[in-house]
């Protein structure tokens, strides 16, 4: 009895002490560095590393993910057809996979069966929601392919000019500057128009990025550089077609898309000419190429949702070589160069009891999801809501070291102009100018350490 009392008292005491403890995040060093995405991390460093589902999915969720995966890889064809019907009449490609090869970054070419580049187009000014102005007869995206007998909107031409540079120690690197033009316009465009290229981005970790609280992202924004560090960061607020409201933009190279479901519906509609309940109007509506079929929406909601769920539940590959001394040195240099100010290592997702895999996870996307001025070199000069003509969203760096494996040989930046990570770094300007200069003046050993760190991601 006595024993029980003491035990009971001790238990109460412990409980009391625990209750009194303030909830806090564990210190960084108590986490496994390899877990880029908490429990949604997958230990896979093969060319299939970007295509793995969350390891913790239930049997039913796995089934839905699998269904989405099937749709993601299936080719769509012109209506009427017994299966996978509804492609076009105007489109950029025929399946999700034909742009997102291996769920990774695409190939920076236009017009081929494997091309992953598309062109956004708009007129100067802003529309009623503060977004880009659609071009009559073209909309906001150039579809450069069409069903048989229909005319593509235009042909996208891409040429590069090359320029060699060298680091202090004489090591050379070469930057290629793309020049984009449109030809074979199906109908003339009056006045000047703005063009911006977009390469299919990797699909990993989207569900986790969607689960980061808006307040966290906004807290890192510093639009007027109040802290005087030369780095601003703007939260892009965009018109979201799914909720018919202004929302925080998280996805896309300019963070112009608020949610995964909007991203998926837009890709189906704009890139493939497939209508859904979210976007039930063909991208060719009102144009000469319109198919005139009364078959919209072409995609069942279940299909759209399966693809949405697939994109939401693709995991992130674990880091490699995290204990390597050179990698650690590279990580220090990355921080010293202030790369980490925008490529923010750690974010925490919101609590979501209904979905443990993305609930309260400490993740390492190396992004703040804000848009930053990157200088004139990278600029598309086409504003997209609050992202001006020189601004781009901080690209998440998780998985970066596997691009070469997943998408042999691998490309970088919004239009794939960079063929190596070094080139991608050296394209940084604007708010990232100081960080780039810091890297450029490092010794060869230190530059290689930074690369080795980036390859470990």
């Amino acid at each position, binding site marked *: 009895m006595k024993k029980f009392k003491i035990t009971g008292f001790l238990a109460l005491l412990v409980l009391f002490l625990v209750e009194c403890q303030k909830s806090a995040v564990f210190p960084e060093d108590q986490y496994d560095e390899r877990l880029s995405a908490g429990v949604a991390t997958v230990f896979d460093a093969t060319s299939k590393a970007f295509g793995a589902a969350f390891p913790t999915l239930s049997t039913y969720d796995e089934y839905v993910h699998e269904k989405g995966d099937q749709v993601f890889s299936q080719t769509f064809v012109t209506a009427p057809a*017994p299966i996978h019907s509804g492609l076009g009449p105007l489109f950029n490609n025929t399946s999700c996979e034909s742009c997102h090869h291996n769920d990774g970054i695409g190939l920076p070419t236009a017009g081929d069966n494997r091309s992953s580049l598309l062109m956004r187009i708009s007129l100067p000014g802003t529309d009623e929601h503060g977004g880009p102005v659609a071009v009559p007869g073209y909309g906001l995206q150039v579809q450069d392919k069409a069903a048989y007998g229909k005319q593509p909107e235009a042909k996208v031409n891409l040429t590069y000019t090359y320029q060699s540079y060298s680091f202090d120690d004489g090591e050379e690197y070469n930057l290629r500057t793309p020049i984009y033009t449109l030809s074979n316009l199906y109908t003339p465009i009056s006045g000047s128009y703005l063009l911006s290229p977009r390469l299919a981005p990797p699909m990993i970790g989207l569900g986790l990025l969607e689960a980061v609280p808006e307040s966290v992202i906004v807290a890192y924004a510093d639009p007027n550089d109040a802290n005087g560090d030369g780095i601003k960061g703007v939260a892009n607020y965009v018109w979201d077609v799914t909720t018919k409201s202004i929302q925080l933009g998280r996805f896309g190279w300019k963070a112009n898309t608020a949610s995964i479901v909007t991203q998926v519906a837009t890709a189906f509609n704009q890139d493939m000419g497939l209508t859904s309940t979210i976007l039930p109007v063909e991208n060719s509506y009102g144009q000469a190429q319109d198919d005139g079929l009364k078959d919209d929406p072409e995609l069942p909601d279940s299909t759209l949702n399966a693809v949405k769920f697939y994109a939401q539940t693709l995991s992130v590959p674990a880091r490699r070589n995290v204990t390597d001394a050179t990698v650690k040195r590279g990580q220090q240099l990355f921080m010293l160069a202030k790369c980490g100010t925008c490529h923010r290592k750690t974010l925490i997702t919101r609590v979501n009891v209904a979905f443990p895999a993305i609930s309260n996870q400490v993740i390492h996307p190396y992004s703040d999801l804000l848009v930053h001025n990157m200088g004139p070199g990278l600029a598309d000069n086409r504003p997209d809501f609050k992202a001006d003509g020189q601004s781009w969203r901080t690209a998440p760096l998780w998985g970066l070291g596997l691009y070469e494996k997943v998408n042999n040989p691998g490309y970088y930046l919004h239009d794939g102009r960079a063929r190596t990570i070094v080139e991608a770094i050296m394209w940084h300007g604007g708010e990232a100018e100081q960080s780039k200069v810091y890297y450029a003046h490092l010794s060869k050993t230190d530059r290689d350490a930074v690369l080795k760190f980036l390859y470990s991601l």
Partner: protein
Amino acid sequence: MKNIFIAAFFLAVIAMAGCKKDNTTNDQNATASTEQNVLTDFAGVLVNPNYQDIQAKALIMNNAIIAFNTAPNDVNLEAIRTAWKDTRAAWEQCEGFLFGPVEDFDYDPTMDDWPLNKADLDNLIASDNPLGVADIEQLGTTLKGFHAIEYIIFGVGGTQKAADITDRDKVYLASLGQSLYNTTTELRNSWDPTQSNNFTAQVINAGKGSTRFTTRKDVFLALVGSMADICNEVANEKMQTPFAAQDSTLDESSFSHNSVNDFRNNITGVLNAYKCQYGGVTGHSLSELVASKNTSLDSRIQAQISAAISSFSGITTTYEKAIYSQQTQVKNVQAAIRTLKETIEGDLSDFVNVNIKD
């Protein structure tokens, strides 16, 4: 006395430990050389011969098309159909190891995209657009390859007659045959050890300077992943989609009624990959590697592959009919393939992860 015993015991332990260590080193060397042999033979005994075979059969089909266009009669049409099925068999078997250039350079969708874009294809044939080989190469993947050829030579429901094939069809068919042969040539060359940048070198130099495979384990993981993928695709996509919808038009090779052969050849491809065999030649195999450390796992995998392949004999009609009239048999096949897939994804993957060190 007691101390002597203890000393002796320690000596024995040390001696045993010593022996054990030697054995371990020898084991590791033996395993490493077995792994290397498996990779070398995978490229030399299976992949290269399989790709050469596809190319050779595509050439026969192309010649059959030329012969038919010269003398369009039902006998010559039948010759194309036979050649198509032969080429298809070799192709479906190589899907047991669908990684490398066949994926990287889209040789797979270029030859075997599905479904056929029938609406566009009918419009194209009805038009007067040029149909040369160069024009075909420019077309989308759903307007060329195996299934476009299949549509012309078999027709909907397999009812095509030589007399039904128009002059435009013949021009298109000739270009399709040549275009498919060109792709099979590119595929063959991509692994050919005598060509520059060949993939065989990437595989056999895994862990020894290969830019694609930093370790031998990477190749094995790619191989095992491909084996699981094709099982999943056959049981849960190719067979399941028309079966679940109860709609035979959703079946992949519905014009030729060749689907059951397609499925069986896919699983035969898994067998070839596991046993490293093609055209009657066998080499050092993944099976051998597994058996050297875990006989029961190897036996189980072999038994499950055999069970999956032989389960097809239960389907005694075309797959288009079987989804209505032989549903139990269809489910049996799916179950057998799913069992195999679970083993490949589970125990076999674990085996590779645990036992292949570099």
